[in-house]
């Protein structure tokens, strides 16, 4: 593998190609370029969704019946699990860059397991909350807690499915560049969900 290939798969051509056109055709960079745009547009819709919920939290907590609820400390542990999963994904990508297929699959597998662990942990947190007498309609803070954790969980479930596809889709690395691109796209989504969770955690904690 020539060293230049390993450096980066950033598209060499900006959005507006020199002659006003975009890179086109069956060109690899062009296809990658399209996928990145699609991913970021999707993420911007998700950002707007959670921005809308944030504004709802802010407005709703102005009314008199907002009683803060307290989270089980297990939630913090679960947060750590998700953060660690982002790191393991990074390790797996490193391994891929240095063409260590086994390491790549190993760490990717760990990431998937951690993702499932996080989801299981969230369900456990819900059980703990219910044990404390907090149900969805109990009070607005609890409602937002269940709603936002559930929506984040659904997005994460999508992320896990994506990782599983990636895992098997790149089982045998035939085309290095396209495997790396797939991994980078998936990891962008994955890290996005980690940041989103940290944000939601702070939002739910602070208010």
């Amino acid at each position, binding site marked *: 593998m020539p060293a230049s290939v390993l450096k980066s798969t950033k598209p060499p051509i900006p959005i507006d190609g020199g*002659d*006003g056109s975009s890179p086109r055709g069956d060109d690899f960079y*062009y296809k990658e370029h*399209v996928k990145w*745009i699609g991913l970021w547009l*999707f993420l911007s*819709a998700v950002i707007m969704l959670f921005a809308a919920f944030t504004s709802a939290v802010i407005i709703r907590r102005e009314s008199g*019946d907002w009683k803060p609820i307290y989270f089980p400390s297990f939630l913090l542990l679960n947060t750590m699990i998700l953060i660690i999963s982002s790191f393991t994904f990074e390790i797996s990508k490193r391994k891929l860059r240095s063409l260590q297929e086994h390491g790549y699959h190993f760490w990717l597998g760990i990431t998937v397991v951690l993702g499932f662990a996080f989801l299981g942990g969230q369900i456990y947190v819900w059980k703990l909350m219910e044990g404390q007498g907090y149900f969805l*309609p109990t009070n*607005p803070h609890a409602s937002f807690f269940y709603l936002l954790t559930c929506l984040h969980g659904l997005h994460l479930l999508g992320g896990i499915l994506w990782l599983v596809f990636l895992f098997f889709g790149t089982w045998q690395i035939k085309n290095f560049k396209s495997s790396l691109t797939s991994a980078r796209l998936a990891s962008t989504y994955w890290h996005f969900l980690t940041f989103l969770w940290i944000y939601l955690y702070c939002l739910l904690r602070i208010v």
Partner: protein
Amino acid sequence: MTVDKQVERHHKIPGFWQHYIFSTNHKVIGIQYLITAFASALIAAGMAMLIRLEIAWPEHSWPILGTLFPGAFPGGVMRPEVYAALFTMHGTLMVFFFLSAALVGGFGNFLIPLQIGADDMAFPFLNMLSYWVYLTGLLVMLSSFFFSPGGPASAGWTSYPPLSALKTAIAGSDWGQSFWIVGMAFFIISFTMGGLNFVTTVLSMRTRGMHMMRLPLTTWALFTTAAVGILAFPALTAAVVMLFLDRHFGTSFFLPSGLYVAGKLLPNKGGSPLLWQHLFWFLGHPEVYIVMLPAMGFTSDILSTFCRKPIFGYPAMVGSILAIGSLSFIVWGHHMFVSGMNPYLGLFFDITTLIIAVPSAIKTFNWMATLWEAKIQLRTPMLFALAFVSLFVTGGLSGIFLAMAPADIQLHDTYFVISHFHFIMAGASLFGIFAATNFWFPKMFGRMMNETLGKFHFWITFITYYCTFFPMMFLGLHGEMRRLYDPVQYYTMFKSLQPINVFISINAFALGAAQLVFVFNFFWSMLRGEKASANPWNANGLEWTLSSPLPYENWEGNSPEVQRWPYDYSYPGAAKDYLPQVVPEQAAAGNY
């Protein structure tokens, strides 16, 4: 592209199912969208006829309706719940499932790849999915007429809680409202998938030489609309999710304390109905521009073509499209002036709303300047495009009254508002759709739409449209509220206005009937219309360099090279009065 590869491409035309039903081809999807959207428009128009029947002759008995729909018209008289369900579903179907779907799903799909010189959308599979999800949403909405006990949703297209959040508040708030929520969820998903595709396609698949500043204004508008949709619809998603929880899981996002239904105090506490209004209008206002911008784009292209003149002020047109798209996110509060908002906040929304009139006015002046001293060809698409400008100005001027809170507090929720948005949103976009259908029909079906029928349809529609919606301004100025089941019996002060309502209804029926001419023309021309040449209007866009009807694969790999913008009409020194975008400078004086 080698010869072998071209031959190979010719063999890729798939069989019936993949070609017409589960197609990933943007042209087929566009036509699927367009025809489905027209079907929902016809259904919604039928509802409007019933609404107008009730308003003009409140609680009158129509034996034939009693026989046809004994449940909804017992003894031939419309039940009040049915009236509420009709105006709700009319609005929902028209705004989302007709206007948005036809403009964005229909023309967006059909035109964007053609106008930028691409073979298809960036994500063709997503595109196919988008249509089927849209159709599912539409079927869910429509099925609420048959399958939901209590009938379809009845809380208005804006679905304000508490009415929409309490299952027992009104018959339609029972199952009907849940159908509405699910239907809208499907629509939002479909629209987002489409939007992702459009933005990505325009950003990344333009052919050689197609700078952003050489895009036809239609594509600019569709591009901006798609971006606005991606960013605005999530607010409604959030709102419908919370509404769903309030309805089915006992939460109190939107339900305030102390509500009594049928003499019983509800357990809900502290929710904010205004929160819904904020979230809804954060989508709702951009949504009105989502349906306006594409129609503005069509108008620009069609005016320029039939004036045989370049569009006036192209950069200003692009700038105002972008300005409208972004400003539309900060004006939503003008729908809530009477909600008790802080007057300073109201002032903010006053000002932003008036500012958005500036780019709108820039566009209008540019259209005027394009028409100035032009050799106008009054073909059917041109008539509709001119009418678009007229409706847009009428609606825009009425908007300026509404934008001022002191006036709006009087006018809010009256027929003045109904008149305003039927001119600017419903009317202008509808005329835009008619203009575009007549204009691009040859590309879709290889035949021309019939001119005589088209002109007949135009004049009846134009005249009855004004006669239907203009008098509503007077009703509104006299204070007559919208959504009244019986304006005569319960509000004696409106009795003297009733002749206006009768006049409006008669015109509305004529308007409705005239649309059958369009439907007939559409299908008749599709089968029997005069065969169209590749470029029947002598227009410049890339789509006109391909045959009519279009080949299955747009460019079969030989994407065109763009040399100029699409508005070189009556170019000095050129032999013909138009220069397609692919003609290089040297060739201009010769062949063209």
